[in-house]
Structures are given as structure tokens and as C-alpha cells.
């Protein structure tokens, strides 16, 4: 199944960038971002969001009150 991979980019008023990844598995997102970071400039901050650590638990979020 095809998976959508998304980058949400914020170009701040002074040209600085914030990039958030969505749809990547584990360390894939780091591999994806690294060359982009290198091309763009100097990384000030890099943080792993909680989802990074929950890769194997994705299923947990799946079923939520779908009854109608």
C-alpha cells in the first residue's frame, strides 16, 4: 500500500525554516531530512516528537469509537 509522506514547512518571516515530517517510519525521517538540512543551512534544533518513539504502537491508535 502506498504511504503518504509529508513535510510541513514553515518559512518564518526572517527566512528561518521549521520542518515537520509526517508518515515516515522510525529513523527514515532523519535520513530524509538530513540532505535537506545540509542544503538549506545550519540546524539550530532537532527534536523527535513523541510519535518517533511509538512506531511499533501505531496500532493502538487505530480503533476509536467507530460505532454509529
Amino acid at each position: 500500500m502506498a504511504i503518504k509522506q509529508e513535510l510541513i514547512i514553515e518559512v518564518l518571516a526572517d527566512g528561518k525554516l521549521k520542518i515537520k515530517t509526517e508518515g515516515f517510519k522510525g529513523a527514515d525521517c532523519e535520513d530524509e531530512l538530513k540532505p535537506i538540512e545540509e542544503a538549506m543551512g545550519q540546524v539550530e534544533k532537532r527534536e523527535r516528537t513523541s510519535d518517533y518513539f511509538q512506531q511499533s504502537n501505531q496500532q493502538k491508535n487505530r480503533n476509536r469509537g467507530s460505532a454509529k
Partner: protein
Amino acid sequence: MSNAVSINVTCMMASMKLMMEGLTELGEALSIEDVRHKANAEASVENCAGEKVKVDYVLKNKTGDRIGLRANPKTNAVEFVAKDLEKASVKESVSAALQAYSRIKILNEVKSKGYGKVKEEKLPNGSIRLVVEKWR
């Protein structure tokens, strides 16, 4: 059949400072309508010491400030030249140029990685929000 579960993982967030290097994307960025600047090649601008400095582009803003841009021959880093770089209207134009450059550069970069732009919006805080995606 159950509905397809879309994997929606947010795993990394990076903040970075822009490195403005070379003039490749600069011309394209400065010609963007939103920046409202005029760029002319082959010109000079007065610096804070009153010396004329040869620059690659000149921005002229509504206030009438002249701001030069040039690539440092040694480092290739882009430098801004103006009589008073601390003046508010100058700072504003420098920011606008940096943002336009940053937007073009990141879009070109992610396009080369196979992404397509699906959304672009201007936020109330002056930021530009871009959403790009690819399927694999």
C-alpha cells in the same frame, strides 16, 4: 472491510537557520511580486562607511532605501550592504528577501526529492506554511 488506516506519523521536527549561499536562487526569489523589490544586476551601493561597494543586486524599497546583495568571493555567502542595516525599513526588506529566498530554495530542494506542493498559505505571524507530499 474496515476503512484503510492511514499512517500519520509525526516523527521529527527540525528548525534551521538559513544559509544564503551563491546567487543561483536569489534572482528568482527577488523577482517574486510579493517582495516588491527591484533587482538590478551590476550596480553599487553605499555601505555604512560611505564607500561604494559593487553588488550583484540592488533592492529598492518603498522608503527609498538602497540595499545591495553580493556573494562574498571567498565564502560564497550572500551579504547585504546598506548605509544603515539597522534601520527598520532596511531590516524589513532584508527579512522579506531572506524569506523569499528561503521559500524558493526549500521548494526547489524538496521538488528534487520528489515532493509536490499541495498547500501554501501565509500565516498571521508572517510565516509561509508549505505542505509538500509524496507517495511511496
